[in-house]
Each structure stands twice: as structure tokens, then as C-alpha cells.
């Protein structure tokens, strides 16, 4: 099942920060990891990842460093910052509230 783009857009930052909470990653790695962890449900248009990453970098939530990959290519690796971890925790809490309330409304019986 593919998820509607508008449903994704509000949570991409949360998803990206969650991915980076475990290890530093480069862009393509994030896309494949996101796809894998969501059982191919989250299929982000790949180019749109970069404005998100660059925005997070500008906000100081992630930092970037260049590293040579095995194939000798220099890649930009993104790593979550301490500030990014705090933001992730806040967004997780907000997401939990949001999810519960959406569930509550969606699952509530329609008035007679």
C-alpha cells in the first residue's frame, strides 16, 4: 500500500531524525533504510529528502561531514546532533498524542 504524499509530509522530519538516531547516514542510504523499515510503504520522492536534510542542518539538528566511501566516492554523511535528539524526543511525544487522537476520532462511533 502506498501512503498519500500529504500524509507523509508532516512526518518526514520525524522519520529522518529517527533514522539518524541510530547511526550517521548518507542520503541514498536513508531512502533505502526508510523503505526497508517501513516494508516499502514509505516511498519518498528521493530528491525531496535533500531540502529536508539541508533544513535540519540549517536548524542545527543534524551535522554533516564528508567521508570517502568504499568505492572511493566522497559522500556527505548526516549525523544527528544533541539538539536534534532533543527535537526528536519532542516530536515523538507530539506524534504519539497526534496518533492517539486521530485513532480516537477515527475509531469513535458515529453519532446516531
Amino acid at each position, binding site marked *: 500500500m502506498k501512503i498519500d504524499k500529504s500524509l507523509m509530509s508532516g512526518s518526514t522530519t520525524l522519520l529522518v531524525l529517527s533514522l539518524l538516531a541510530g547511526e550517521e547516514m548518507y542520503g541514498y542510504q536513508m531512502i533505502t533504510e526508510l523503505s526497508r523499515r517501513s516494508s516499502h510503504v514509505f516511498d519518498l520522492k528521493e530528491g*525531496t529528502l535533500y531540502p529536508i536534510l539541508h533544513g535540519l542542518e540549517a536548524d542545527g539538528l543534524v551535522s554533516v561531514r564528508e567521508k570517502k566511501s568504499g568505492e572511493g566516492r566522497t559522500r556527505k554523511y548526516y549525523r544527528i546532533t544533541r539538539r536534534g535528539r532533543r527535537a526528536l524526543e519532542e516530536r515523538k511525544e507530539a506524534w504519539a498524542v497526534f496518533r492517539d487522537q486521530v485513532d480516537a476520532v477515527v475509531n469513535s462511533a458515529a453519532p446516531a
Partner: protein
Amino acid sequence: MRNSFQIWINAVCEQVRFRPDHRSIELELRDHYEDHVQDLLRLGRPRELAEERALEAMGNAQEVGRALDKVHKPWLGWLWEVSRVLVLALALLLAWKLWKDTYTVSLTKKTWDQLMWTSPPFGVSYAATDYLDLWLAPGEPEFYAGTYWDDPLPGETRLQVPLTVWAQTEDVFHEHLVSPDQHWNLEVTADGRPIPHGSYAGDGSTRNSGYWVYDGPGQYGWTRYRFRILLILEEPPRRAEVTIPRTGTVLTAEWEGAA
């Protein structure tokens, strides 16, 4: 298909008004695209199909470009560039200033001299004042024709008799009684005859005078320094005395076998 990617990336960059960032954006997105192509090739897709799929997965170029433009704000980018140039200019200015600033150069030398300070030899004349420990040692008289800035007059040779002074204090903030940076404030006699301060350069025309020579740091604020008092005399002395003003402390230097 590679050309298709170039068209795509050009369309992305067209939307980003801050041009200096175009190159890094292009490199990163190109890496991403090529990673995807390689993955699809590994899965056995034909190259053309792999490139087509990878490009399609990148999304709408204008959309990506507009989103990047919101992050790569031109005013912020230029502010960053200008501040980098300013910081560089400031660093260069500071480096130039430090290079030109003789005080900094001399400070470096003095610090080195402090580290290289050698203790006075055993048995030389020693006195302790309220502020300073002082040592005085006689040096070897020498005839000097010289080739330096403080040369004797042309054709002349002068007799120079060095007295080496070591000074040490615990109080780095005290303005010492003895300081080569101050005036000739020591009373010096050679065989009982007062030796006045000659010209600082000691031009050699003034007999029976003396002047300072820096051997080590002698400025206010240092704990240890060493310098020489060069006596310009007619003949080698037997004995020289140095009186520290206001304390009455006298240091003596004696030469054995002097005429």
C-alpha cells in the same frame, strides 16, 4: 539518460537562487542518483531502465528546487560568504599586524630567553635586595674593532670589558630597580673611577663609559633576565663595582692578573 539527469539537475538548480551552492547540491544529488542506478544494475536491470527508474524516483525537479531554495536563502548565503571573507581578512590583518608588531616578535624572543635562562656561575658576586636577587660576573676584556652598528670610530679599536648581570625576582609586576629598559640607573666604578653612561649605542669615541647590552629579556614584567654592562675603558681594570641605587647594595667583579 545521463543527459536526462543533467537536464533534471539543471532544472533543480535553476530554482535555487543562491548560485554558490549549486555545485554542492548537484554533487550530492548526482551521487544519490548514481547510487540508485548502481543498485538497480546490481539487481540485473538494463542500464537504460535503471537510469530511467532512478531518475523517476528523484521526483519533480521544480518541486525539489523550490524546496531547496527555501533552505538555501540567498541573503543568508551571501551573509555567510561575506562573513567568511571578513573573518579571513581579519585573520590576515591580525597575522600581518603580529608580524609587523615588534613587540610581539620581541615578546616571543623574550619568552624563549626566559626558558633558556642560564643560572649564574658559582662563586660570582651576589646580592639580594628587597625585590631582586642579583649576580655580577667579570667578563673577558677584549679589543674590539667591530663591524656592527655600535662600532668604534673608523680605524679605532676599543677595549671592552663586559660585566654580566643576572637578575631574578619573584614579583613579575614590580618595576625593578635594575632594568636595561630604564635609564643607566646603576652606579658603576672601575678601579674607583665612576663610569658614566655613554651613548646607548656606545659609539666608541667616549672612553671610560658604559652601556647596556641585552643578553636576555630585560623588560618589566619578567622574572629572570640577563644582560651585560659593557665598559669602554682605556685599560683593563682590576676591579669593578656596581651599586644598586636606593639600596646601597654593592656587587663587585675582580679580574686576576689585570694590569
